[in-house]
């Protein structure tokens, strides 16, 4: 059973132009003590604020801007579903710019994503992410961050993850390409410094040609990368903890490797 509720507090986005990002409510809100009306802030909370800040800046540049992030909160957790009003009131309490609430079961949440034209799905659940990905929805895993930045930091991984035989689904690759192109377009609305959005490229295995190829491919899609890290086999986590991306997109980028 899938149901969608509009958030009347927030102006709805242009369905043709907006970039629909679905985030699980379990990632955004933390179940606090029972009896609290309002949930605590979860792992994805800073991310939502960063998305919101990008929208604010986009509208500052152009009040008629239609290329905005359209954030949808999706609830698959049955416990949280019973508390749908609490999710909605918490959203309002924090003034989060969420335009729709989707409620579905674990079985049909991907259907819900597809129905809502979701271009990017973000979750803390390690099962949900590949599930959505396999059905062609660009997805990324969210993790707790130390000192998350105010700037939205999106990282593209130029190497395919170690799966030499099973490449990513064509549908997912398509989704990745169109999302990256939209992100690139958004990025161009801002100058070099003081941008609310930073696009980061990392190649973990290949050498400089691998990274150079990825830079060119992204540029051909209209994506101008701000930061580039070529690791050539060096361990990822020390670098990642300095880069601090909000999420990584490694799905569907096999076109970027050498």
């Amino acid at each position, binding site marked *: 059973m899938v149901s969608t509720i509009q958030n009347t507090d927030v102006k709805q986005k242009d369905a043709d132009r907006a970039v629909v990002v679905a985030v699980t409510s379990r990632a955004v809100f933390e179940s606090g003590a029972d009896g609290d009306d309002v949930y605590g802030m979860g792992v994805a909370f800073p991310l939502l604020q960063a998305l919101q800040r990008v929208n604010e800046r986009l509208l500052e540049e152009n009040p008629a801007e239609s290329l905005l992030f359209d954030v949808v909160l999706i609830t698959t957790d049955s416990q949280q579903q019973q508390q749908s009003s609490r999710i909605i009131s918490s959203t309002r309490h924090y003034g989060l710019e969420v335009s729709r609430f989707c409620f579905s079961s674990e079985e049909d949440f991907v259907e819900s994503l597809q129905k809502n034209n979701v271009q990017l799905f973000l979750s803390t659940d390690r099962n949900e992410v590949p599930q959505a990905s396999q059905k062609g929805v660009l997805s990324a895993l969210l993790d707790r961050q130390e000192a998350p930045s105010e700037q939205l930091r999106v990282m593209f991984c130029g190497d395919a993850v170690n799966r030499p035989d099973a490449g990513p689904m064509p549908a997912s690759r398509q989704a990745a390409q169109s999302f990256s192109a939209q992100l690139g377009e958004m990025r161009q609305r801002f100058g070099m410094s003081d941008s609310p959005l930073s696009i980061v490229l990392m190649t973990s295995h290949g050498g400089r040609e691998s990274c150079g190829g990825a830079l060119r491919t992204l540029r051909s899609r209209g994506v101008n990368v701000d930061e580039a890290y070529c690791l*050539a086999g060096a361990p990822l986590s020390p670098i990642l903890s300095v880069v601090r991306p909000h999420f990584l997109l490694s799905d569907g980028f096999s076109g970027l490797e050498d």
Partner: protein
Amino acid sequence: MSGQVKELKVSPSSNGDSRGSWEEKDEFDQDHLGLTTKPKLVTGRRARKVEGGVFFPKPENAVTIAVSSRVLFRTEREQEVYLQKGVEEYLRYQIEHENEPFAPGPAFPFVKALEAVNTRLRELYPQSEELFDIVLVTYNHAHVGIRLINTINHHNLFIERFCMTGGSSPIGYLKAWHTNLYLSADADKVREALAEGIAAATMFMTENLTEVSESQLRVAFDGDAVLFSDESERIFKAHGLDKFFEHERDNEDTLLDHGPLKGFLEALGKLQKKFYAKGHRLDCPIRTFLVTARSAASSGIRALKTLRAWGLEIDEALFLAGAPKGPMLEKIRPHIYFDDQMFHVEGAAEMGTVAAHVPYGIAQKHNLKQNSNVGK
């Protein structure tokens, strides 16, 4: 800024291709910015022979040298665009000139020599990760990335790791890469690195560079406030030469405290021992020098005792007893010379040595122009 760039001799690449000397054309550019030289176009990437050995060592096992793009290459023209016209125009300019490789900068001969040592190390120890690992760490935007990669290809450098931070501080990345030495044109970044315990030095472009060895890496160090702490220099600055001599004599058997580049000398020594172990002491491709204003008979003894107690060998110790360092360095021909005093850095550069400034210790509080050649 002078009109012509003098010829800079660059050693053959480490995989044996002969390069000949890298020359700037003598023509003057129409560029209204006042900079000369015509840019060379990338002719295509040379195939690199891949011999046996490790090529991507783990950072903690390797001797990691982080260099910024402004010291590895010459980017004065682009800096001018940045300063005169701002960052947007700077990046647009870089992209427009993407297929024109940068010329070698002050750190270039040093990096080439590191690669030559690596080739020898791989021959002797094909399984070992104890190699030099060169990482380009720049706070340039990734928009400049393709031009930098084209340039690395053009000069046939083995640099496969880089961080282009798009304007944020590179210091966190230095730590993540277990950096043993950081070379940059930006003195503030260098100071930040030193404050984090990372050996670092500021480099400057010099014209009229003397030819350096193509087969042996030669690194020269000042003593006080570079290998050793600045404690003795403080005495000299506060109380004069006599008090300095007295202090050194009284404390001859007390070890000096360590300075910011001690760790790097240690890393070089470790690699040297690997050559010695295979019978290559006489023709070791790494040679180190101490070039100090201390005197051999008196204040120098404490320096030598300290090095010995640290278990560090230095191949040649030159005690100048206050004489200028330039002529001595010109004879030694190091790929790089580290000193904490700009006076000596400039003096070395005037005589064709690539000198790097270590902005550490009491000397930084003094006027750069102060005549301090009545040394220790």
